[in-house]
């Protein structure tokens, strides 16, 4: 079964685009959220998360900490690039926005390959 992916992205056009390409790659989109609070309140029925770093004025790091605790993999997608990520997340996947769909596909394949 395809991995279920949660998307945190407050730019709605980018979120729609992510939804489309994830579906194209054969993943399921578990949900698209625009606020960190929503993510923190959500029950964990997803296998992986793609995280914009700044959502409506709040950074996503405490949610990322929770995912890390829980053992749920995640990918940062950010305009800041790796420079904007705190040291404790060193080694996590970071996609510099804008990225080509193939870059995302490569990272996803490494973390959660689509099984036919």
């Amino acid at each position: 079964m395809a991995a279920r992916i949660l998307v945190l992205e407050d730019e709605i056009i980018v979120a729609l685009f992510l939804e489309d390409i994830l579906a194209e790659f054969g993943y399921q989109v578990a949900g698209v959220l625009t606020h960190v609070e929503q993510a923190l309140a959500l029950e964990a029925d997803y296998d992986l998360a793609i995280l914009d770093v700044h959502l409506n004025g709040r950074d996503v790091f405490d949610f990322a900490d929770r995912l890390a605790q829980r053992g749920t993999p995640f990918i940062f997608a950010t305009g800041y690039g790796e420079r904007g990520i705190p040291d404790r997340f060193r080694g996590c996947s970071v996609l510099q926005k804008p990225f080509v769909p193939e870059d995302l596909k490569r990272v996803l394949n490494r973390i959660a390959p689509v099984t036919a």
Partner: protein
Amino acid sequence: MNLHINEKLMAALPPDFLAGGGLMGMAMRSHDWGATPLGAPQDWPDALRTCLRILLASRQPMWLWWGPKLVSFHNDAALRVMGASSGGLGQPARQAWAGVWQRFRTRVEGAMNGLASAQAGPMAVRRDGTAEDNYYTFSFSPVPEEGGRIGGVLCVCSDDTGRVVATRQLALEIEHRRRVEQHQNALLDELNHRVKNTLATVQAMAMQTLRGIDLQARDAFLARLFALSSQHDLLTLDNWAGTSFEGVVCRALRPWHEEGRARFHVEGPAIHLDPKRALALGMGFHELATNAARYGALSNAEGLVHVTWAILEDGKTVRLRWEERGGPPVVRPPRKGFGLRLIEHGLGRELSGVVALDFAPDGLVCEWVMKLS
């Protein structure tokens, strides 16, 4: 008899070692030394006389404490530091220096035991009716008498206020600059982030708008967008201070690099480019490489691209050459597309340079000459 009169006369005249010395010299000459433990000046030891000569002639603030009771002397320059009158002259140090004696006591006593030392620090001094902090270094030196016994302590003071204030101002200035820089970096980070997010939105919009309509147009557009974004990264890394010529070239050509195959030969001296030139050149190389991938040396398996540049004799002009070899025979395009127009006119204008495109049959050659600043 005569001799006796002369001695009396001599005793009434001020001794020559107390000559000069302004206010304090005057005070010393008229002081009733007989009432002090030192007795009359004509009986003072040579070491004390020499010290007083130096002290009275000096423009450096000086103090002298002499004998077991540490009888005090100081010069006019010392008055500036103490901000006091001639009070204290001839008195034991612990009386004369009552206010600050505790601060200096160990050093003075140490010097009486032969140990020289120095003490630096601020001192509130009343000048022109206002109290201000001044910085002084006091150095205490033992003064040996004939025979080696320590007769007294000479204290020389240097005013460090100017240096200390200058150092403090410099530190403030450095701190201020650091803050400005920090603020600037934060702004740059924010700007970069916004540009990137905007590019990401434009990308998403294009993907959605062109979905299923024109794949080729979509890909060409995305490639240009990424070329722009990627050159932008290069500038971001250097905080918009500009970047190297080679960095721009390599980054622009990266999408066409192939593992284990040399498709590019890049060679030239180190040149620093400002952001405007770097971005324009990066986009130019992107278009040249795109063109080569469609029609030129990058469209087959054998082709090679030589990118070389050199600084001309005036030191301010760069000549850059893009030369394709080993591609299919070149055919002059019937119509120049956006890419070639960007290279020919856009770069020419933007970089105030001259661009020459030569559709030679065995490989496109593009040469442009531009000023560095």
